[in-house]
């Protein structure tokens, strides 16, 4: 790495026969011929694109003609520049662009001295202007931010599941107790709220021999092998739709958290921190599955206000 001396005075211009003006190509006529052919191909390809467009040809024809046109025309121009134009090398001087010391001092002085002259004498005005501008800046943030949407309030803590809510499919069909076989899985919503994201529940029917694995106090939260959990993953809210039936595991397809369905959807692996909230369900007099109440905790991912 050389620092090199600064050259004194301007450098001489190039005469017409200067080697720096000669093209890079050893056989310029050949290079020109190649570039010319490329540009002709490009020209024809653009015509072809026009035709392809008007006959509504497939995307591939449009791309091929347009792409070939651009590629060859571009290649021609680039080859012209690289092989046929003055190759140099040429030199340009770098000039220090920072100002002289005197200019810098004058600039600083302009700000400090003039500013000081004014502000130091009128401290009250300066302070008041600062106060006013700060207030303006702060309150202008209000419409920009607060008007965007509602406050969370209690919304994250409740769903539409209540005591007696009927379980329905996405089509609104009520789910009866013989609908699912053992090993079956179904996405359900509370009646009247189909498609509502926070209310999405995954209903599974397990073999009743898995009963002993149920967490204490929840033995009556399922019925006839049916258990229901919030379908929103407690990691980032993806629907946990992947049910591995032989191992009774719900796997979240997004980041592969695993939940043990027979044991209260406790996470066994992966980034999910909490079990899927369980919905207590039972069968009503007509054989339809209904909820015994809402969830006992907020559904979905964690947030600051969640205790």
């Amino acid at each position: 790495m050389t620092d090199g001396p600064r050259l004194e005075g301007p450098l001489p211009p190039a005469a017409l026969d200067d080697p720096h003006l000669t093209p890079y190509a050893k056989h310029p006529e050949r290079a020109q011929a190649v570039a010319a052919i490329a540009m002709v191909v490009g020209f024809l390809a653009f015509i072809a694109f026009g035709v392809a467009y008007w006959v509504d040809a497939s995307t591939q024809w449009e791309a091929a003609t347009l792409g070939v046109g651009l590629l060859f025309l571009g290649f021609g121009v680039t080859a012209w520049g690289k092989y046929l134009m003055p190759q140099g090398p040429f030199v340009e001087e770098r000039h220090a662009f920072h100002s002289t010391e005197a200019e810098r001092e004058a600039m600083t002085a302009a700000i400090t001295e003039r500013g000081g002259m004014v502000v130091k004498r009128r401290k009250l005005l300066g302070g008041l202007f600062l106060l006013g501008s700060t207030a303006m800046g702060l309150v202008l943030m209000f419409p920009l931010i607060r008007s965007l949407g509602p406050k969370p309030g209690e919304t994250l803590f409740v769903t539409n599941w209540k005591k007696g809510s009927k379980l329905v499919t996405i089509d609104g069909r009520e789910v009866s107790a013989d609908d699912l076989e053992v090993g079956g899985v179904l996405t359900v919503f509370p009646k009247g709220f189909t498609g509502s994201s926070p209310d999405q529940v995954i209903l599974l029917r397990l073999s009743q021999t898995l009963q002993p694995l149920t967490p204490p106090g929840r033995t009556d939260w399922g019925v006839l092998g049916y258990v229901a959990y919030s379908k929103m993953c407690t990691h980032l809210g993806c629907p946990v739709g992947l049910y591995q039936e032989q191992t009774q595991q719900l796997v979240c397809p997004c980041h592969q958290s695993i939940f043990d369905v027979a044991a209260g959807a406790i996470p066994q692996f992966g980034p999910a921190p909490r079990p899927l909230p369980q919905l207590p369900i039972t069968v009503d007099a007509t054989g339809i599955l209904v909820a015994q109440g809402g969830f006992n905790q907020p559904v979905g991912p964690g947030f600051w206000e969640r205790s």
Partner: protein
Amino acid sequence: MRSLLKARYAAPAALVGGMGIVGLLAFSPGMAPADASPTTTSPPLTATTATTTPIGHRATPSVSSVLANRTPSNQTGIYNVELPAALIAPGQALFAANCSSCHGPEALGTVRAPNLQGLGAGTVDFWVSTGRMPLANSSVQATRKPPRFNRLQTLEIAAWVQSLTPGLGVPVPLVNTNGADLESGGTLFTLNCAACHTITGAGDALMDGAYAPSLHLATPTQVVEAIRSGPGNMPHFGPGNITDTETRDISAYVTGVLQHPANPGGVGLGGIGPVGEGFVGLLVGVGALMLVCFWIGDRT
């Protein structure tokens, strides 16, 4: 121009080109041109399921005669076949020769294999016609491979297993995908199947070495049999969950749309989403342009 052919470009060009081609090949399993244009997608007919020729020297009913005159119901598109009794005896012989060593002579199961009684002819048909049975390697999940038996033999084995517990389990369905509601099939597929099999049916890994297989080789019959019988880690979807018509629609969607995806944009890059796209974009796109930079600029 000639500089492009110089040896110093050969190595980087070969590297980028080779990796790009590898990437394109790896991510484009079926590089056959998309045959179905989107405006003329038509669901395939069920006749394609019964194409194998029967064993010539035996005077046994042919597949077509077995399944002839059993037209699928116009209502649901699914007709559950009752396999004729003539298939049972040859089925028992085949079972004894090929399956009983693991499943036991009465298909009640052993330490090596589960009990097949009560599962139904459709379940057996699924496992055997996809080639998963006879099992090649018992330490990993059974993989689809070329079936060992032809269609008639498969149905014979299925008939015999069904005869052990008549009326129980999943029957063999005849599926008529004509007139299926592809929109409904797609919606149902997305809600019930995409979480394991992916939205394009490409399949993906599950826990503990299991995997959800690709759906690109499934026949309409196999799709319906799988939905009803829930093989392996797949859940069981009975008629109370997904009706016969809905299974027909899903089957038509899988075999008509997923297996012949509309790829008007070019090479499909494997249908596994942005992974393949990023690979191609970086290697082929940025790589090719870097080669152009090599050509245009100095290399000193």
